[in-house]
């Protein structure tokens, strides 16, 4: 026996054992992979992403204590963010309804006005519209009062000097209303023409036809994208802070800027704001999904519905439902 032979090396038997283990593990992975439900895998991906994020968080050495200390103050802006978004979406819905009726109207005045409205408010940036409403309306009011003091009294001119939050809400409503006009128009036009003709045949007036036949069916198409617009608007409320909302009723972004700049912790403040907006949209996306499935209830086949509900029960509580 030479020295080389004596060295304990991997014999043929050991190799076989190792490759046997590898094959066994491989087979286990393949088997588990087949057995593991899709949603569990998705959850694992999310866990991996969050682990990576946590790593970056740790590497970047953010001031976690500062974020904890200031979270409550920034989070108090949630209610004002919601006020602005709710005010904006309500205004947008009204404008979109009127705009859509104008777009399908045969009246040249209604058609012309709604065409201009959609073109202008979709064709200019939201932030520009906010500044225009905040800065230009008071000028218009004051000049109108100077030119026609009797027709346009001082009190009316003063009304046009809008609060930053009100100007921002108006701009959001006008801008989103223009986009949603097209959604509403498409919704109304998606109702089968025969429905309207049937209403006409029954002798309904235009208003009756719209209110009782066309609009209720159009809303099924309109509601889901409107929910989406609302979620988008939640985030655009941050733009209002560029007008300088009063500190007492500042929304999330303004609050994060106020404390972040004052303490030189801008990044940390932005992270808190990002977390809050994200949380808010997760909550509203959940409701949006519920609403969407509810309005389409009548159009889902019974067998599909049963399958969907049993699927939901089987995976209920599983991860990955975020987003």
């Amino acid at each position, binding site marked *: 026996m030479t020295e080389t032979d004596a060295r304990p090396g991997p014999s043929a038997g050991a190799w076989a054992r190792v490759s046997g283990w590898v094959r066994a593990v491989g087979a286990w992975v393949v088997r588990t992979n087949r057995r593991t439900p899709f949603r569990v895998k998705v959850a694992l991906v999310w866990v991996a992403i969050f682990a990576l994020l946590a790593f970056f968080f740790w590497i970047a050495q953010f001031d976690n204590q500062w974020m904890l200390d200031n979270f409550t103050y920034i989070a108090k802006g949630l209610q004002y963010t919601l006020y602005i978004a709710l005010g904006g979406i309500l205004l947008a819905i009204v404008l979109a309804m009127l705009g859509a009726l104008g777009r399908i109207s045969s009246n040249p005045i209604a058609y012309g006005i709604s065409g201009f409205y959609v073109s202008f408010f979709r064709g200019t940036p939201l932030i520009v519209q906010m500044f225009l409403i905040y800065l230009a309306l008071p000028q218009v009011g004051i000049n109108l009062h100077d030119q026609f003091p009797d027709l346009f009294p001082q009190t009316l001119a003063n009304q046009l000097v809008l609060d930053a939050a009100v100007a921002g809400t108006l701009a959001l409503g006008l801008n989103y209303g223009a986009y949603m006009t097209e959604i509403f128009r498409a919704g109304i036009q998606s109702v089968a023409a025969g429905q309207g003709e049937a209403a006409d045949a029954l002798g309904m007036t235009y208003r009756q036809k719209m209110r009782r036949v066309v609009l209720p069916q159009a809303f099924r198409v309109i509601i889901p994208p409107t929910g989406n617009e609302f979620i988008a608007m939640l985030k655009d409320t941050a733009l209002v802070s560029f007008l300088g909302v*009063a500190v007492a009723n500042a929304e999330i972004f303004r609050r994060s800027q106020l404390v972040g700049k004052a303490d030189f912790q*801008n990044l940390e403040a932005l992270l808190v704001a990002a977390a809050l907006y994200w949380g808010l949209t997760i909550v509203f996306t959940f409701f949006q999904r519920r609403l969407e499935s509810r309005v389409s209830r009548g159009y889902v086949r019974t067998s599909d519905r049963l399958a969907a509900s049993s699927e939901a029960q089987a995976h209920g509580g599983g991860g990955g439902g975020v987003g």
Partner: protein
Amino acid sequence: MWKSSTALAGVAVLVLSIASCGSDERDVGASGDEPAPEGGVCDTTDASGDLLAEICEKGTLTVSTDPAYPPQSVLNEQTGELEGFDIDVATEIANRLGVSVAWQEPSWDLITAGSWNGRWDVSVGSMTPTNDRQEVLDFTQPYYYTPAVVVVHEDNTSVTDLSTDLDGADIGVCSSCTYEQYLNKSLDIEGFTFDFIIDDVDPTGYDTDTTALQDLALGDGTRLDAVMTSLTTAQGFIDNGQPVKIVGDPVFYEPLSVAMDKSSELDNATLLEAVDQIVGEMHDDGTLTKLSEQWYDGTDLSVQQ
């Protein structure tokens, strides 16, 4: 269309409620709720029909401030009140007028742009009365003077002589503020002369000084070679533990004044005169020295260096 009319009513109610809660809570700050003090300018003035008369009648001086600038103006998020040197100066001016003070917090650009439309009466916001601004705003005499300094990253060793070592460097400043004008050699204030010692700079403009400072803190030359800002802001950033340092002596001293809107609907001449006189009195009786030493670590910035 009953549906849209109900919705319209809903919008109206909502917008009104936002508007009303705006006016309810506007009076945050030092002495917003206190009764107007007696014996001020308002008791003796014979102004009528102008801005001063209206302020006296309302009993409130509405002051604009940007509460993102410690130690001049900063929001105490615990109490919800504003604090700082500018806040104390504005409160004292209102006291001496014989009215209480209320705050508005618009963005800085909107304050310097003029055309306030009566949203607020005066700005006590450490504003430099540049000749450009004087076209849209009226200014009182300066109530204090801020030294402008050059800040570099603490690893930097190449900048020692400001008049030569910064020529052609990447310097960050707040956009459309006096430091940018200084670097562009366009700073122009009546009654003041400036020595433009830094040449060939194309300054990078930021929304505020603190954003520029944060970019500088990333590393020496990573994005910026230097930042020009006020001594007070720079010191606050250094005290926060950030890796930057001040080099050399202050480059220039800028005067800072109370501003009023030239285009205001009501004549502001008597108010300007009254506030200018109050600022003079606050210089003479040591009030400004006391407030400056209180907010700027014992430094008296109320006198020109």
